C-alpha cells in the first residue's frame, strides 16, 4: 500500500528543490543586472564628472584667457587714455596760456561782452603751479597726469581692476616715466619754428587766446622777444584776464629794454587784477633780479 501523505511531502520537497535552480538563476541574473547597471551608472557618473572637470578646467582656462585679454585690453585702454590725457593736457596747456593772455588784455577793454562770455565759458581755472609746471616741462606735471589717469578709470571697472591695477601701476610705473619722458621730448620739438607756425595757423583759424599765449611763450623762450611781445599783446586784446599773458608781455618789454613800460603795465594790471604773480614779477624787475 502506497503511503500517500509521505509521497505528497516528498513531492513538495522535490517541487521546491526543482524551483531552486530557477530561483538561483533569476537571483543571479538580477544581481548581475543590478551590478552591471550600478557599474554603468557609476561609469556614466564618472564620465560626467570628467566632462564637468574638463568643462570646468576649460572654463577656468577660458576665464584665465579672458582675464589675460581683459588685462591686455585694459593695458591698451590705459595707454590710449594716457595718450588721450597727454593730448588733452597739451590742449589744456594751450588753453590755459590763452586764458593768461586774456587776463593781461583787460585794461585795453577792446573785447566785446559776448566774446568775454564765450571765453569765460572756456575757462577751466588752472592753478599757477600747474602753469609753472607746463612752462618748465618738469616730470611732476606728468605724475599728475598719471594720477588723473587713475581717476578717469570708470567706476564700474574700478572694483574688478583694483588688484590688477595696483600690480599694473607698479609694473607700468617705469614705462609711464619713460613715456612721459618721450612726451616731454615731443614738447621740446614743439618749440621749433614749424610747430609755432602750426599753432599760429590754428590761432588764425579760431582766434583762441590760449594758442596766441602759447605762441608768445614759445617765442619768449627762444629769445624772439618782439614776437613774444606782439602775441602777448594780441592775447591781452582777446582776453585781458590772463596773468600769464601779461607776465610774458612784461618780460618781453624788459628784454626789449623797455623796463619802465613793463613796470607801468604791471602796476596797472596789479591794480586791476591784484595778481600775485604780477606782483612778484614787478618786485623782481624793480629789484633788478629779472633783467
Amino acid at each position, binding site marked *: *500500500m*502506497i503511503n*500517500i501523505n509521505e*509521497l*505528497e511531502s*516528498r*513531492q513538495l*520537497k*522535490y*517541487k521546491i*528543490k526543482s524551483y531552486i535552480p530557477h530561483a538561483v538563476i533569476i537571483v543571479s541574473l538580477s544581481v548581475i543586472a543590478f551590478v552591471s547597471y550600478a557599474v554603468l551608472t557609476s561609469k556614466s557618473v564618472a564620465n560626467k564628472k570628467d566632462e564637468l572637470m574638463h568643462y570646468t578646467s576649460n572654463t577656468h582656462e577660458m576665464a584665465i584667457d579672458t582675464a589675460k585679454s581683459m588685462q591686455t585690453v585694459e593695458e591698451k585702454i590705459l595707454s590710449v587714455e594716457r595718450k588721450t590725457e597727454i593730448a588733452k593736457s597739451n590742449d589744456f596747456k594751450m588753453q590755459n596760456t590763452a586764458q593768461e593772455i586774456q587776463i593781461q588784455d583787460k585794461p585795453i577793454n577792446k573785447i566785446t561782452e559776448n566774446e568775454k562770455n564765450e571765453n569765460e565759458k572756456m575757462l577751466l581755472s588752472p592753478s599757477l603751479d600747474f602753469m609753472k609746471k607746463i612752462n618748465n616741462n618738469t616730470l611732476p606735471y606728468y605724475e599728475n597726469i598719471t594720477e588723473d589717469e587713475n581717476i578717469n578709470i570708470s567706476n564700474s571697472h574700478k572694483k574688478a581692476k583694483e588688484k590688477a591695477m595696483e600690480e599694473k601701476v607698479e609694473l607700468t610705473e617705469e614705462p609711464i616715466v619713460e613715456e612721459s619722458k618721450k612726451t616731454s621730448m615731443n614738447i621740446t620739438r614743439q618749440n621749433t619754428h614749424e610747430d609755432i607756425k602750426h599753432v599760429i595757423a590754428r590761432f588764425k583759424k579760431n582766434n583762441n587766446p590760449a594758442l596766441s599765449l602759447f605762441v608768445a611763450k614759445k617765442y619768449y623762450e627762444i629769445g624772439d622777444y618782439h614776437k613774444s611781445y606782439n602775441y602777448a599783446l594780441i592775447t591781452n586784446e582777446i582776453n585781458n584776464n590772463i596773468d600769464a599773458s601779461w607776465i610774458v608781455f612784461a618780460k618781453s618789454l624788459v628784454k626789449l629794454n623797455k623796463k619802465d613800460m613793463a613796470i607801468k603795465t604791471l602796476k596797472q594790471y596789479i591794480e586791476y587784477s591784484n595778481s600775485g604773480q604780477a606782483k612778484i614779477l614787478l618786485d623782481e624787475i624793480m629789484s633788478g633780479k629779472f633783467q
Partner: protein
Amino acid sequence: MKSSIFESSKNVFLDTVNAKDYIQLDRVSTIYQSLKNSVKKPLKMILLYGKPGTGKSMFLNKLYHDLSVSQKVYLYSTPILDESEFFKTLAHDILNVKYRGELNFTQFMAVVNEKMLNEIPLVLLDEAQLYSNALMEKIRLLSDTRKIKFVITLHKTEKEDLIAKEHFQTRIWESIELENASNVELKIYIQKKLMKANCFDSANMFQNKPVNLIHKLTKGNYRDTNKLLYTLFDIYASYEENNSVKINKNNISNKIIEMAALHTGLIHD
C-alpha cells in the same frame, strides 16, 4: 464501480512479457515486419539489440507467438548458463533426444549432424549478454552449420557492443535495433494499452501535457513507463478510496505523476 477503473488501469501496466499485450506502433510494426522477413531468409543469426526496456523481450515473445503456428520455434527467455544443460535442453527440444549425463558441444554437434531435420528450427535466445563468451562462440559455430537458426537479443551497452563485434560481426546477417518511444509513440502506447483493456476513461485522461512529463521522466522507456503508470494508477486508486476530492478525473495530475516517479525512483527528492 468507479474505483475499479483505476485498479484495472493499474493492472494494464503490470511489467509482464505477454505477446497479447503487444502494442502496434507504426515504427515498431515496421521493425517487427522487418524481423519477420529476416527470419524467412537463410540467415545464420539475427541480432536484436537495444537498451533495457525497449521491448526486445516483447518482440521475441511476439515473434515466437506469431511464428510458432507455422514453424518450429523455440524461445528461451531465461538464459541457460550451464553449457551441458544448454545443449541437453536444445537436444531435448529440437531433436527429441534425452541425455541423462553430460552433453558437450562436440557430442551435440554429432547428434545434430546425424539427425536429418526437415526444416531449420528457429531458436530465440533472450538476454544473450548473460551467456559466457565460450558458450556464445559455440552458438556461433552451431549457427555456421546452418542446421539451427538463432535470433538473439542483447542489451545495448558498451560491453554488449563489444560482444556483438567480437562474436557475431562476421556471422550476423541482420541486426535490428530497438529504441525508446517518442512523445507521440508513448501517448499512443499508453492509450492503446488502456483501451485494449477497456479503460477508456483512463485513456482519455492522458493528454499531451502529462504524457510529455511522463516521457521526460521515463525518456520513452516502455518498462519505466509501465512501472510509472502502474504506481500512478495505484496512487489514483488510493486517492479514490480515501480522499476522492483531491483528484481530477479528467486529467492526469502532474503532481501525482511526480509522486509516482518519486515512488518508483525515477526522480529523487
